[in-house]
């Protein structure tokens, strides 16, 4: 199946929007699953979009761009992976095998976009000194351009040049690599999970991690059911500790009172 010009335009626009979305309203940006879903709608195959997006989503759970760190751009990966999965007809594992290297390469362009905006920062600095508020505001908003293009241009190039190149890659790919990538697609979510566990105070709450694991692996409780148990445990935790906060405050007060009494006696 060939990709149409309209589909290329829509996917390029999606790529421009998804990074702006990520920086502003955060409705689909940041989340490969939601980008994959929309890419799937554009390509006319929602199922593959969901599968590609969902797999990538699990790899980046809890991975954020905090403090300006660049992370693998699996949003772009989801767009390109979904598009080529549909045009090549090679399915999910092929798409993931493509999306992951694309996401890793895109890190460089994220760095470039963040660097480009330093140029506008300097222009802002300059216009502040001459008190030109209009020019200050304008140059701040120009930041949109490097951000948007850093995603839209690579996607446009990959989609227009892609078909031929991708076909060559597929034919040349050896068996050990395709098989290995298939295994990689299965176990890559461990990276996202491990990063998340590193970020959270896992040691403090490890009991709940074990409860969740037990429910899913031994009792085969579906994810929503596990979440319900989690919500219940969260409520119990909140209630119990809220009481101790209130109690603690009261105790402090009464202790202060006692201290005062003591003082009076000693006087």
């Amino acid at each position, binding site marked *: 199946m060939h990709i149409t010009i309209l589909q290329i335009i829509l996917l390029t626009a999606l790529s421009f929007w998804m990074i702006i979305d990520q*920086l*502003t309203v955060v*409705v*689909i940006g940041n989340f490969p699953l*939601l980008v*994959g*879903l929309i890419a799937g709608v554009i390509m006319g195959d929602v199922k593959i979009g*969901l*599968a590609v997006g*969902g*797999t990538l*989503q*699990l790899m980046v*759970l809890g991975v954020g761009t*905090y403090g*300006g760190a660049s*992370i*693998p751009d699996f949003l772009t990966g989801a767009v390109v992976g979904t598009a080529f999965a549909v045009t090549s007809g090679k399915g999910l594992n092929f798409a993931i095998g493509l999306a992951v290297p694309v996401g*890793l390469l895109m*890190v460089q362009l994220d760095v470039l976009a*963040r660097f*480009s905006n330093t140029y*506008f*920062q300097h222009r*802002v*600095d300059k216009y502040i000194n001459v008190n030109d*508020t209009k020019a*200050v505001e304008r140059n*701040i*908003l120009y*930041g949109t351009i490097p*951000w948007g293009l850093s995603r839209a241009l690579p996607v446009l190039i990959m989609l227009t040049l892609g078909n031929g190149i991708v076909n060559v890659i597929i034919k040349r790919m050896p068996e*050990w690599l395709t*098989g*290995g990538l298939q295994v990689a697609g*299965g*176990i890559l979510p*461990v*990276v996202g*999970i*491990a990063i*998340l*566990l*590193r970020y*959270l105070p896992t040691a403090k*709450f490890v009991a709940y*991690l074990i409860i*969740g*694991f037990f429910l*899913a*692996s031994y009792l085969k*409780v579906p*994810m*929503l059911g*596990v*979440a319900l148990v*989690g919500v219940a*445990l*969260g409520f119990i935790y909140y209630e119990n500790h809220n009481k101790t*906060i209130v109690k603690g405050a009261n105790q402090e007060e009464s202790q202060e009172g006692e201290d005062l009494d003591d003082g009076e006696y000693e006087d």
Partner: protein
Amino acid sequence: MANTKTNQVTTKQLHQINRRWLWSSQICWNYEKMMATGYLYTVMPVLKMLYKDDELREMMIMHNQFFNTNPFIGQLIIGMDIAIEEKEGIKSKEAVAGLKTGLMGPFAGVGDTIFGVIIPTIFGSISAYMALRGNPIGAIIWMLVNIGIVFLRYPILKLGYTQGAKIVSEYSERLNLLTDSAILLGLTVVGALIPTVVTAKVPFVYRSGKVVLKLQTILNQIMPGLIPVLLVALVYWMLGRKKVTSTKMIIFVMVLAIVLKALNILG
């Protein structure tokens, strides 16, 4: 305290500030001053109302200093800032600069944990799990939740504006408790995620005469989901070492998958 300025921020202006923060906080993000331009752009209408000429320039320079926080709740700082500035004017310059740098870190911590990690983990896990089974409902609900969160961001500015610095000290203990309860829920879900989304089958079969031992069956008897747990533990441990980044771990896991597939340990 002598109130020299009669200028007061109107509700309409608060809406304008909210809109500006939503769309510009990170739009000119750069390595040099990160979100400084976003903050400056957001408060510009207030600056123009309160200050003229040299004062305006001085305050623009102050607001153009390094700033980085969580965009979901950073407007709480802005709310406090404008409440102080409209009362004290240029005299508040140092106090506001201190307030901004003092609060951006703690707010980034709480906001990134809740909006950047916990909510995406819970919704991402459940909807990716459904997506891999071809069901888009989870993804659609997640998107709607994200739209809802956009509207929840609006009252936070007003809260900062009316309550000022009081809330930070007063609610901090409950806020921590709430964050802890949310983390606990997140970890329960992550625990369930490990055996359900990491697919690692061991095809190895041991044959000796009439004895046929399937390694996977033996592993399952020890603990279902043992391989995923071991892999998560391995990556978790490696991430704790110096100079190990998430990008390096993704490459490591891909190479590991190819090697283990070639050795017929995973498949």
